[in-house]
């Protein structure tokens, strides 16, 4: 979803217009926030993958038994179980805003500048070619 054209020659499809960020932001700002930051889960046993052996595909009998059979990628077979201890996990993924606050308050000594961000000087953003040629200035 998040791409940038670092190369020349990419042309956007015709009539491909940017969304209205202002109205989208208004909707997002009005969305309710979680009451709590984290949820406690576990201990539990988690099932990963499933039994869908590649060898069965060429078996004249098993390959036709599809009732209740789970299909999947070869690297998801066989099913296995993993134990998980009790843990707290945040409801939400880390956002740009959270990481920005961290970055400008000492974090830049610990982490690199995110490749998904771009530094702008004044009203000109450098080091980037735009898919649509339009720069949204703040």
């Amino acid at each position, binding site marked *: 979803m998040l791409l940038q054209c670092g190369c020349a020659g990419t042309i956007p499809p015709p009539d491909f217009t940017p*969304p209205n960020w202002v109205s989208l932001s208004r909707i997002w700002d009005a969305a309710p926030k979680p009451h709590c930051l984290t949820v406690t889960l576990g201990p539990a046993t988690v099932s990963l993958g499933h039994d869908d052996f590649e060898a069965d595909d060429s078996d004249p009998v098993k390959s036709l038994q599809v009732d209740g059979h789970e*299909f999947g990628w070869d690297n998801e077979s066989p099913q296995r179980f993993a134990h998980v201890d009790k843990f707290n996990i945040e409801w939400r993924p880390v*956002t740009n805003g959270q990481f920005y606050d961290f970055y400008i308050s000492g974090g830049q000594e610990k*982490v690199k500048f995110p490749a998904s*961000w771009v530094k702008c000087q004044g009203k000109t953003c450098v080091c980037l070619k*735009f898919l649509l040629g339009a720069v949204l200035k703040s």
Partner: protein
Amino acid sequence: MIQVRTVYGPVPMKTAWDWPVLLSYNDVSTYAIVKGGRLPTDPELRLFYDRFESGYEGGANWGFRNWHPIPYVCFSVHRIRYIFTKHPLDLRQAGSGMGAVVIMAGFGSGRPQYLIVMTVLSRLNSTLGTLKLNRQSYC
């Protein structure tokens, strides 16, 4: 000034404030450690995803619903999540008979077939008995 890259060109940080940040593994791991935690393991994350509907209001941002990231949202408490652990339910029945809105059907290969229905509790009271659902309020 820092902006966030999108296919539409950079957007102001303020616009992208609540979007999930895209980072390298090392940097997001450092962030988690500085904040007093760590990144979840694969089984831990699987447990979280199996237990809760983790997406966006109106369904996940897949199938090119949007060409840019969008914030996660929280479902308000008067909305109730129902999970059908099997999938015998007729979608048309769910859509009309109960006033429910089907927002997402998850078909991860090998995962249980989940049909997730968002609705308002009061509209479902009369039909709860027939559904026998696993009812959970969400955060």
